């Protein structure tokens, strides 16, 4: 049963991953990528990595892909233009693809991975908490790598903000504290006027 589910999810995963690079419409491609992430999370869930699986959905599907979709939806792409130059770029593209495939096989080929090299993980009891275990390892054994990743991310955030923070004279930003500070007497003057006499002509 579990094997069957695994193969069904794997088939969906591979099919949707292929669809990401073959469909013509960029919005469809992004949606297929969402499907890919989702199926991937389902497969991780079967491997008892529930924290990673849910985080994958939360971070990639819930945040990253929404921003992707946000940008891609606003693109105005002429697809026929994009398809031109396929042959011209193939001279570079095919060797690069071959090198990547070769490297992947060298690292994760069947002589390094597979059930005879790495035994299947033992199934844990129902009260085993994957999240706690992960946190413990992350903050003890890998704490330096973790901190390093955090520093790199902070640098990236600051760089991104610095690149986009430029003076915009046309921006109509209103200072909320200035708006709150406004008092009635600054803006409004109440004038006392004598009542007008009734005009006979208008009667």
């Amino acid at each position, binding site marked *: 049963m579990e094997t069957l589910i695994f193969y069904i999810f794997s088939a969906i995963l591979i099919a949707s991953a292929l669809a990401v690079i073959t469909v013509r419409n960029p*919005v469809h491609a992004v949606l297929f990528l969402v499907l890919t992430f989702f199926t991937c999370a389902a497969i991780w869930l079967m491997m008892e990595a529930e*924290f990673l699986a*849910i985080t994958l959905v*939360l971070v990639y599907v819930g945040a990253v892909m929404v*921003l992707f979709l946000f940008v891609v939806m606003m693109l105005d792409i002429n697809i026929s233009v994009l398809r031109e130059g396929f042959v011209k770029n193939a001279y570079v593209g095919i060797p690069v693809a071959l090198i990547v495939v070769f490297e992947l096989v060298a690292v994760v080929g069947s002589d390094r991975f597979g059930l005879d090299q790495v035994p299947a993980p033992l199934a844990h009891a129902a009260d085993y908490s*994957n*999240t706690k275990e992960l946190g413990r390892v992350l903050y003890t054994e890998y704490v330096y790598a973790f901190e390093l990743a955090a520093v790199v991310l902070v640098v990236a955030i600051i760089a991104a903000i610095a690149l986009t923070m430029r003076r915009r004279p046309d921006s109509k*930003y209103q200072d909320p504290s200035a708006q709150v500070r406004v008092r009635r007497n600054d803006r409004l003057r109440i004038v006392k006027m004598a009542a007008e006499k009734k005009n006979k002509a208008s009667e």
Partner: protein
Amino acid sequence: MIDAALTIWNAIPELLQIVIKIVAVVVPIMLSVAYLTLAERKVIGYIQVRIGPNRVGPRGLLQPIADGLKLAMKEIIIPTNANRFLFVLGPIFTLAPALVAWAVIPFDEGAAIANIDAGLLYILAMTSVGVYGVIIAGWASNSKYAFLGALRSSAQVISYEIAMGFALVVVLMAAGSLNLQDIVLAQKGELGLLDWFWLPLLPMFVVYFISGVAETNRAPFDVAEGESEIVAGFHVEYSGMTFAIFFLAEYANMILISVLTAIMFMGGWLSPFAGTMFEPVLGWIPGFFWLLAKTALLLFLFLWFRATFPRYRYDQIMRLGWKVFIPVTIVWILVVGCLVLGNVPPWFD
């Protein structure tokens, strides 16, 4: 009697048991959604010194059924240049996450469809998927109003999700668990309602609930719909049942956010009088009733907001999310970290 019922229950195959549990949760939710629409119209009516719907059935009580029938009978119009498949998928994508999240909600001690360890994370993941429905609907409609609504909605949901996530981080620090049932049990104590997390996490309670209002695209954060600016936003091209599903999803999400707030900050099914002098008198009330009462209170706030506040301007929404809520949550992570380390009674001892 109970033994006989248990034997029958255990004789049912496991898959069927799960299906029965799901039906037992989803049907009351759908009924609550239907009557929440009536409650909204009545409450806002009385706030605005009107009577509200009172024609269909006694005191207007059959109004939601009449509305549902009307929407079901209407023709579904699909615009000519719309992407048919995604156009139909949009409403489904909004409703499904709103219902899926209910799988881990504990209604009483041990009463949840699935009592999973990463429950809080699961909830956050599922609610964040809900925005796809709005975006897909807006894009597939091939209409500028719908598209603007979708863009606004995605930007808003992304912004408020961060504040929401941080508020949940504070909750899990305080409870020491991602399991929703353990979060409620962590709020159990001798002081009744003073033991709940709303008191030590008061800023988070406010941030979470307001972010929840923003996530559900409700007034005063309903710029995605913005009927006075962009007609009806993302669902302007939808009619009949497809529109009704958007409507159901919005109200189901409201109920979900209210239940979650009740569970995480207001002690879930715990009685507010536990440990006080009223406990012998009110101890017989089942926990589910208290959860229901807290949820109803929070839902009333949703309706009250809508009747009271004008819609936020877009830049004001962004400012509130990024410049007010996120700094507040980051400061409170430090504060709660210190409280937990110091084992401050009565919450963290």
